[in-house]
């Protein structure tokens, strides 16, 4: 799907965060160690906060004068189709979480570059930074086994 408008981009971000929250909650339930569980639960809460922030951006920072078509941005490259194996060890869950954060980070960087509303672009870059720092934190974690 091509993301051709300001609203399409933000809506996709909102859906992506919703999907991330859902995945993190599922994985938290499947995690065996308390630490992994709590990390994933916190990521789910962060994704919910991001979703709300995007809804606010869409509502408050829309400007008729700057509504321009968005080009060369497709949703296909940013799907969160991540499934743990049947075994689903904590290390694997954390690895998947890193990949999810990477997808989100990349989406926000690419989306920010295509938006003509600077405030929103800045907000998206902030989200990219947050997902980037989550990814770094996840990499540092020694999973509880």
């Amino acid at each position, binding site marked *: *799907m*091509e*993301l*051709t*408008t*300001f*609203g*399409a981009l933000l*809506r996709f971000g909102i859906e992506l965060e919703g999907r991330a929250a859902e995945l993190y909650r599922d994985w938290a339930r499947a995690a065996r160690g308390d630490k992994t569980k709590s990390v994933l639960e916190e990521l789910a809460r962060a994704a919910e906060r991001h979703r709300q922030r995007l809804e606010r951006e*869409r*509502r*408050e920072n*829309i*400007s*008729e*004068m700057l*509504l*321009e*078509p968005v080009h060369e941005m497709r949703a296909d490259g940013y799907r969160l189709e991540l499934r743990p194996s049947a075994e689903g060890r904590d290390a694997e869950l954390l690895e998947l979480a890193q990949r999810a954060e990477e997808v989100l980070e990349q989406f926000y960087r690419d989306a920010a570059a295509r938006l*003509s509303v600077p405030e929103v672009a800045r907000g998206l870059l902030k989200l990219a930074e947050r997902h980037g720092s989550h990814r770094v934190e996840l990499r540092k974690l020694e999973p509880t086994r």
Partner: protein
Amino acid sequence: MDRLKNYIGGEWRESKSQESLEVRNPATEEVLAQVPLSTDEEVEAAIRAACEAFPEWRETPPTTRIQYLFRLKGLLEDHFEALARTISSEEGKTLDEARGEMRRLIENVEVATGIPSLMMGYSLEDIARGIDEEVVRQPLGVFAVIPPFNFPAMVPWWFAPYAIAAGNTYIVKPSEQVPIVQNKIFQLVDELDLPPGVLNLVNGAKGVVDHLLESPDVVGISSVTSTPVARYIYRKAAEHGKRVQCQAGAKNFIVVMPDADLDRTIPPLITSFFGCAGERCLSGSVLLPVGEVYEPLKERFTAAAGKLKVGDPLDETVQMGPVISKKHKERVLGYIDRGLQEGARLLLDGRSIRVAGHEEGYFIGPTVFDRVRPEMAIAREEIFGPVASIIRVADLDEAIEIIHANPYGNASSIFTTSGSAAREFKYRVKCGNIGINVGIVAPMAFFPFGGRKDSFFGDLHGQGRDAIDFFTEKKVVITRWW
């Protein structure tokens, strides 16, 4: 099928009128509601309610009056998405455009909350020995608004927040083509617990307008309509001794200088000409490339227009929705035919566009004419559709000559990297709203919405300080005490 109700004296009332019109979704032709053409008695009831509410409301301290607006802002934010979707469904603009409209509505409510400062008067001691003079601003009574179809949520709220914040009472007659969103906004108004009669809504068409214009109890009228209707309202309101401000039609010219940065110019041009399917009084209509920029601009502009995704405005990826009605579609198609008959060359033809699954929708694709001459109908008259006309000009003087030869004077823009050209354009062009590297010159709520020549009738514009002047009367008090 919902038959819309009137909101009079703080309550919802069924209209007793036998006459009503269908409100259709322009993307699907589905009937969304029935709008009654309210009777004279119902309009009179709204005027009575507003009159009765006025004395108590004007004595309500401004700091109390604005609390209702703060609450309204909160409710509008809470229902933002639902209202935006309603706008898209009944008017046909895209969701992003509908959100933009909602934002501007809320912005006007926010600005009007500053009324305790905005409506202050001024004074001077000792204008003669021991004598002081002051000016106070006072509300006048009952005002009403006659809005257009193209911004069904926002336009009534270009005026209403200032009117009631200043202590007046108000009547909204929504456009009969798109009354649903205003009806929903008034459901939020109902939650404010305003004193009954401060804000009223009466559905209808010309009959309601005439009653409001003729009533001695309505002190002022704001309207946004086509130019012939604006002339009618202006004349009739003036005959009946009212304050009146009428924003009218437009034909907006956009000049592109040879030094313009085309990478940055094309996207705002596309938004200007084809945003809201060209149904915006600030839409670009005639493109005036100066000199050698003509060829590259023509090619890039036409290519970008051809890429726009046209379809159901509720689909978030759609970039341009339908026009408002079957009748209006025929009118716009008629202009395209006239352009061809008068010898213009069609570079991009939007007439035969088909939107899968929406075969009944009133869609017209982006249309671009080249080799247009200033005397052609497509270059002179307001089309109010997604039709762009290109007239090549030799220099800025010729561009300004063409702009000035047109009877309208709503908006005009220049795209350039030259400060000198921009300054000259800004200084000389006789339009109410000027854009420098901006394609849609939409004044923010704290600035007046301009318009000159046949684009505006009256002296005080909507929004900004003009709104405060329009909705208040200055009274001079000269005082001496012994």
